[in-house]
């Protein structure tokens, strides 16, 4: 029969102060199948591990239970020890008598009897453990980076820099993302374009990076190391291989009054356009919905103006398929639809704008060439009111979270405004000032102390127009008094929200998301750049609101994960995967619908002559994450999870 070794760890005083380890050792020594039971102060220490190894060898143990802390802490430690002593590492179980016992109890007797129950139930489990071997999966060492903002660019550059191929997909005509729209960046006030453009150029020129702009990821199939992605290239109607980016076509285009998306509607663009002057690639696209030729069948002025025949009205969209080993999702964010704040008059009053508008007004390459002007009449505003948390931290408007960057950019806006407009007057309504970050608090202090930003703690209840002024009515909660400010312009620090199609896209590639649509990481603290789907990583604001430094840091972290994966040709995966019993599978496909990872397929069972006998479910071990959802569902118990078989779980429960 089984010969199990049980090792009771004191964890210093962590366990021993609440659990009577002597009693536990005695109880386990008397348990059927236990060959040896020891206690020690720290089994995770070197001498502790040595004790375990020696016991395995001396007693020919068939299984080991370490009664200590959470398996999250030391499962790997002891698995390694087992393997070194010649025992299959999956013949180990950790009985968590710390987090689940000593730490949560205050009565020693109760804690001790609970520790006994926990430990013996693991002993009963380990008796039924099977030797498992890691699964080897081949790895395609090419990465897909989805999203060409600063996060995506950084991740692509880091991965390519280490010599691995990258395909960078951006759905807009140019990479750059939101960062390219910004004027100066906090807390150093260096010009956003100036630091971004070199990166963009580096990316497009990198021999290992294929940049696919105006393209979207249609579909992702497969699993870690072995993804297949279909990428749809939208028709640009400009031959990228020919275009030199001279801009003649743009000059000649007769449709000139289209509000520019890049300029947040503050500027205009043509029907054939590049979103901004420094666009990468510097190749225009034709906006089919606005182009006269596409609408009326006549015009083609751009074609005529192009010296090198780069315009191609016949161009079709195409779908290309690539194999990838890893995917970095960097799809970024959007700003909240500010119309939810009807009381602030956004959309009603032209001079109520968002922070992003303000960025364009302040940008030297923007529609006003960097002059802060009112959109309504082009006058320079004397008094500007900034309203922070105009969307964030407001559950009634659907956003409970803090958008993290607004405190900083509002301070920056006030500062830029003062710099450009001496003697101007900025009033900032705020709830709290959150300026945790290197140089951040100093930055906000500077806005207040050096640049005269006037911070009013309180909420704004209403913005309305009176005599050509925007009257901002609110409360100064520090004074406890209502305030009214007559402003020339109001800037709303709107919330960062996920892309409107974030949830749909997550479903397409099979990753999880939270209630808003921000993508879920595998573990908030310990695995912040991985998703629960192995091989797919996250960076930037698609995961949660982030500023540039954080996005870039996370992008490098994601790249490090990808490179770690790419460091070997074969990937070893945990063998904790499900498998289907084909004789009893009834083929109802419940498991197929239940699987969060799309790891279960339909498989034909044929006789020797190839005639179809029946269809059964089949688990792809490469995709399976061992979550067990299918097991709990299967009515005929035809699926079992290696390492957590029903037999093991049943024995565990029965021993309680």
């Amino acid at each position, binding site marked *: 029969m089984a010969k199990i070794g049980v090792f009771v760890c004191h964890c210093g005083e962590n366990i021993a102060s609440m659990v009577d380890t002597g009693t536990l050792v005695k109880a386990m020594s008397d348990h059927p199948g236990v060959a040896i039971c020891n206690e020690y102060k720290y089994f995770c220490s070197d001498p502790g591990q040595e004790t375990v190894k020696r016991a395995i060898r001396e007693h020919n143990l068939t299984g080991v239970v370490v009664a200590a802390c959470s398996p999250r802490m030391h499962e790997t430690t002891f698995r390694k020890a087992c393997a070194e002593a010649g025992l299959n590492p999956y013949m180990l179980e950790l009985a968590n008598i710390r987090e689940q016992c000593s730490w949560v109890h205050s009565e020693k007797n109760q804690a001790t009897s609970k520790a006994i129950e926990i430990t013996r139930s693991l002993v009963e489990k380990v008796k039924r453990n099977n030797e498992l071997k890691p699964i080897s999966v081949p790895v395609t060492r090419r990465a897909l980076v989805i999203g060409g903002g600063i996060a995506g660019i950084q991740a692509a550059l880091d991965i390519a820099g280490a010599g691995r191929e990258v395909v960078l997909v951006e759905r807009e005509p140019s990479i750059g993302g939101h960062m390219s729209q910004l004027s100066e960046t906090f807390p150093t006030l260096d010009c956003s374009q100036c630091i971004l453009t070199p990166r963009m150029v580096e990316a497009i020129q990198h021999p290992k990076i294929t940049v696919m702009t105006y393209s979207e990821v249609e579909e992702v199939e497969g699993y870690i190391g072995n993804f297949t992605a279909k990428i749809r290239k939208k028709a640009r109607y400009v031959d990228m291989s020919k275009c030199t980016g001279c801009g003649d076509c743009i000059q000649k285009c007769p449709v000139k009054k289209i509000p520019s998306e890049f300029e947040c509607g503050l500027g205009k663009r043509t029907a054939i356009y590049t979103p901004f002057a420094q666009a990468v690639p510097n190749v225009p696209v034709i906006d089919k919905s606005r182009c006269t030729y596409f609408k009326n069948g006549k015009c083609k002025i751009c074609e005529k103006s192009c010296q090198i025949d780069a315009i191609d009205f016949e161009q079709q969209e195409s779908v290309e398929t690539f194999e990838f080993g890893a995917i970095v999702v960097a799809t970024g964010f959007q700003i909240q639809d500010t119309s939810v704040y009807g009381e602030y008059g956004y959309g009603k009053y032209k001079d109520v704008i968002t922070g992003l508008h303000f960025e364009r007004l302040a940008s030297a390459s923007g529609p006003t060439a960097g002059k802060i002007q009112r959109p309504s009449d082009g006058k320079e505003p004397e008094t500007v009111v900034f309203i922070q948390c105009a969307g964030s931290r407001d559950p009634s408007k659907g956003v409970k979270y803090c958008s993290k960057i607004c405190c900083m950019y509002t301070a920056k806006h006030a500062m830029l405004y003062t710099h450009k407009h001496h003697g101007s007057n900025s009033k900032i309504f705020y709830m709290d000032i959150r300026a945790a970050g290197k140089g951040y608090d100093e930055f906000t202090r500077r806005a207040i102390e050096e640049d005269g930003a006037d911070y009013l703690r309180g909420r704004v209840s209403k913005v309305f127009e009176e005599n050509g002024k925007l009257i901002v009515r609110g409360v100064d909660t520090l004074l406890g008094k209502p305030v009214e400010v007559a402003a020339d312009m109001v800037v709303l620090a709107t919330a960062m929200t996920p892309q409107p199609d974030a949830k749909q896209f997550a479903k397409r590639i099979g*990753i999880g998301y939270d209630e808003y649509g921000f993508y879920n990481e595998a573990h908030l603290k310990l695995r912040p750049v991985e998703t629960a789907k192995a091989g797919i990583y996250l960076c930037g604001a698609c995961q949660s609101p982030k500023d540039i430094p954080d996005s870039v840091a996370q992008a490098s972290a994601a790249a490090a994960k990808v490179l770690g994966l790419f460091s070997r040709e074969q990937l070893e995966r945990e063998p904790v995967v499900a498998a289907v019993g084909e004789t009893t599978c009834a083929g*109802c496909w419940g498991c197929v619908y*239940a699987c969060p990872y799309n790891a279960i397929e339909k498989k034909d069972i044929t006789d020797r002559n190839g005639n179809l006998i029946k269809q059964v479910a089949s688990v792809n071990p490469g995709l399976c994450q061992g*979550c067990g959802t299918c097991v709990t*569902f299967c009515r*005929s118990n035809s699926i079992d999870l290696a390492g957590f078989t029903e*037999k093991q779980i049943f024995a565990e429960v029965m021993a309680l």
Partner: protein
Amino acid sequence: MGIQEQYRSEAAALLSSGEVKLVIGFGEGSTADRRRPLFARTPEEAQKFVLDAACIANLSTYLVTEGLLSDGKKVAVFLKPDGIRSVNILISEAQLKPDQVVILGYAIDKAEITALEGRNISDFSLGEEIRSHTPPPHILQEAERIEEMNPAERFEFWKAHFSKCIKCYACRQVCPMCYCRRCIVDVNQPQWVSTSSHTLGNFEWNIVRAFHLAGRCAACGACDRACPVNIPLRLVNYRMGKEVIDAFDYCAGENSSQKPVLASFKQDDPETFIL
């Protein structure tokens, strides 16, 4: 021509034209008030079909007989709305191919039999009808009575009934939804459900079955009628069905493209621990 004659000749025609290989209907039973399933393979046998208010069994259970439909040929079957509902569930669970079943639909209203139009499963849209359909008054009354009990009383009620169970599995065998090739009670590694029919083992079995039918039961009452020791099984399944409608707005068998309510993962699952 009454519906019985109409269906006899229709069944005969289906058989003689070779459209179906088999018609499953009802024939005379061993006593005047009983009807028994009748399998006709020839037009002559089809003349023995009986259709009247005593034809209450849900014949869809025979459609999942192992091997019956594996040759790809068609089978016609006499079905009431609850049977049609079962067929919808079976199709959605991939146990039947819609084009293999010809439905001779009928409804019983008191002692009256009416024919239902349509022969393909797609001809029947049951949606609202099923939702508004309530169990017979005496069942409903009993269900309400149990609902009003306190938990201890309710436990005693079921204990008394379940302790009678002899584990003959007639409830399972007559149920069209119990098509598993190996039932959970026949799994012995581990032995999830005791084979013994003592009160505990009986509880285990009946509760497991109730769970396995939650969101899948067509409420035909076959289990209840089959139980040789008169356990009011449909009350259990009625309650589970109600629970599923309330919690998930899901009524089993409304159509044949439903996904299993308790086994369809949604990416926006409020619990984030899986994905």
